[in-house]
């Protein structure tokens, strides 16, 4: 056992100095290997750098587009559309690919963001009816189809997706509400969406009522 003359203490180590006072130790080590693993200097993670480079590139493109638009301004803010596209591409990479969260959550969030961004484009173009008449119902149907497919093919942990499936199904009634509030004129895409949602909710309550109840309790407990 090694010994520190200053601290008057035994030190169980293969190192040559006292961990308390840095004094050179006397005696021979009788512990081989060391009680603790060798310390390795941490290596900087490349993943974080990638995220920063991605954010930097996205912000650079957005600022460049804004400047060009402002310099060559002719009464139209055309830069909104490419900015939204770049922003959505960033969301897809950052949330859809790099993030490790639940796939259903990713699909749900990315669809919601896409609908909101499309609405913004519609406002810029002074015509956003196509967004709520066609784009929103079809995107919601596609989203519920994707999450439903995951629930059906995933062998374990599929219960965690039920809550998202229910959420998207409830959202699917929004276009039909838009129709009755006279926000939209074309009704058939909204009807298809509402029908899909009704089918999903019926299926959920008929076949998976217990796991669904359990999921709701888990996620909404106060």
């Amino acid at each position, binding site marked *: 056992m090694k010994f520190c003359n200053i*601290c*008057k203490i035994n*030190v*169980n180590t293969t*190192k040559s100095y006292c*961990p*308390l006072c840095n004094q050179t130790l006397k005696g021979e080590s009788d512990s081989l290997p060391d009680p*603790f693993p060798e*310390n390795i200097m*941490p290596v900087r993670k490349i993943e974080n750098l990638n995220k920063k480079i991605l954010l930097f590139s996205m912000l650079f493109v957005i600022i460049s587009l804004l400047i060009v638009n402002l310099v060559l301004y002719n009464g139209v803010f055309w830069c909104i559309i490419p900015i939204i596209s770049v922003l959505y591409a960033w969301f897809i990479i950052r949330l859809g690919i790099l993030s490790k969260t639940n796939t259903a959550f990713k699909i749900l969030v990315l669809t919601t963001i896409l609908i909101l961004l499309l609405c913004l484009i519609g406002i810029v173009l002074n015509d956003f009816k196509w967004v709520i008449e066609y784009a929103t119902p079809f995107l919601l149907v596609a989203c519920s189809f994707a999450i439903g497919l995951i629930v059906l093919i995933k062998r374990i942990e599929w219960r965690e997706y039920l809550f998202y499936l229910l959420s998207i199904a409830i959202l699917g009634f929004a276009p039909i509400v838009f129709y009755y509030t006279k926000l939209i004129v074309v009704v058939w895409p909204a009807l298809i969406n509402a029908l899909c949602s009704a089918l999903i909710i019926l299926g959920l309550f008929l076949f998976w009522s217990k796991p669904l109840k359990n999921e709701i309790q888990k996620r909404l407990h106060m």
Partner: protein
Amino acid sequence: MLITISGKSYGISVRSVKMQKANARWYKLDNAAKIYPVVYSKTNSGTFIVAANLYEPVIPKLLQDAINKLLPRFPMFRVKLKKGLFWYYLNYNYKPFIIKPATDDFCGHIRNNNDYLFEVLYRNNTITLHIFHSLTDGTGAITFLKSIVYKYLNLKGYQLTPDNLIITEQSVPTGAELEDSYLKYYNKSNRKTEKERLAFQIKGEPLNFGGTGAILGWLKTSQLHDLAKTNNATITAYLTAVIIYSIYQTQIKGRTFIKESTRPVKVLVPVNLRIRMFSLTLRNFAGFIKVGMQLNRENITFEEILQTVKNQLTEQINTAAYSKYANSYVYFEKNFFLRICPLVLKNLIIKLAYHFIGNRLNTVQFSNLGVISFPESVQPYIKSIQCALGASKTSLLNCMACSYLDEFNITFSRFIAEKDIERECFRFLTTNNLNITIESNYMEQQNEIL
């Protein structure tokens, strides 16, 4: 699978039974557990360690088998942390649990572990249970470690008996083990309402490359007990006084005129509430005592500090005082507006409260797990037990202690490079004729991979 009811057999598919069971396994976080996911960050892992040093090298395959056999008995450990709309919760984890060799990241973050909130590490003769505090506290972790060690030794072929000291795989998890005792024993009228002064904060430079520095001290329980007895104190009171005295010697003495030095040095001492409230829970259930004094005078003696610590501990040795802090946290948790607040907003509120008030109310935490007992048939195979609490940017120095037979372990974990407080503590004990052996992870010395 066949189930017989009133003489008739009914067939049930094994898969459906498994599915139903798995479906039911989710747990709300207990009151103490709720803070850790919120304050978890790059510089705060929220973990602690309990480890058993055996007389023989650990065989990883047997250890893995032991864990695989034990995990179904401890469903509250077979979980992953999930976000709900209002609170975090623990959900059943389907993925396999894999043991790992110990790394240099002492009390670090639990990562790449199939979402489990604990790790079982092995190195030489040591089995280490590295655990996130949201799962359980020191006593719960020791119970789990005891079961792991028992099962491991059992698989090694030794004839052992549990003697009611070990939870074995043959028993069934009970509701009492899974309960949130904070809620069960909540007493609204007994909570802390008075305003508390901010505590003195230890100063130091962070370690060059992050991580936690650890210094473990090994001494004889009988010697320490005798030393404490000659001072008419318990081991916890004596060590608490030593820690306060070391902080005074290294951080305050000679600088008493500085404003910061007028703040009291406060040691947070967790107390196991299970014994006092007859709880069997394996989740967090600890109360707190705070011991502290203002040290902005020159020539304060150790005897003076020890007397103050003893007096304060005597005043607080009752269940009502122990559970005062816990009750006030539950009261905060039960606040209607906090409950209906979405998790994102709640996290922000709790984080701010923790950083600006909660964390600055203590100088250091000293957790004494007490005597760890194993059945007589197991004792010949276990040399010692050790424990350590992770340090963080907001809690620069922590101390944890436990004893097994005549081996007393005291571990200091630090986030800073300075080791003055530990040095003073150990030197004080050695000058009192205690024979101490220390070990360190030499965190200040890090090697570059070339």
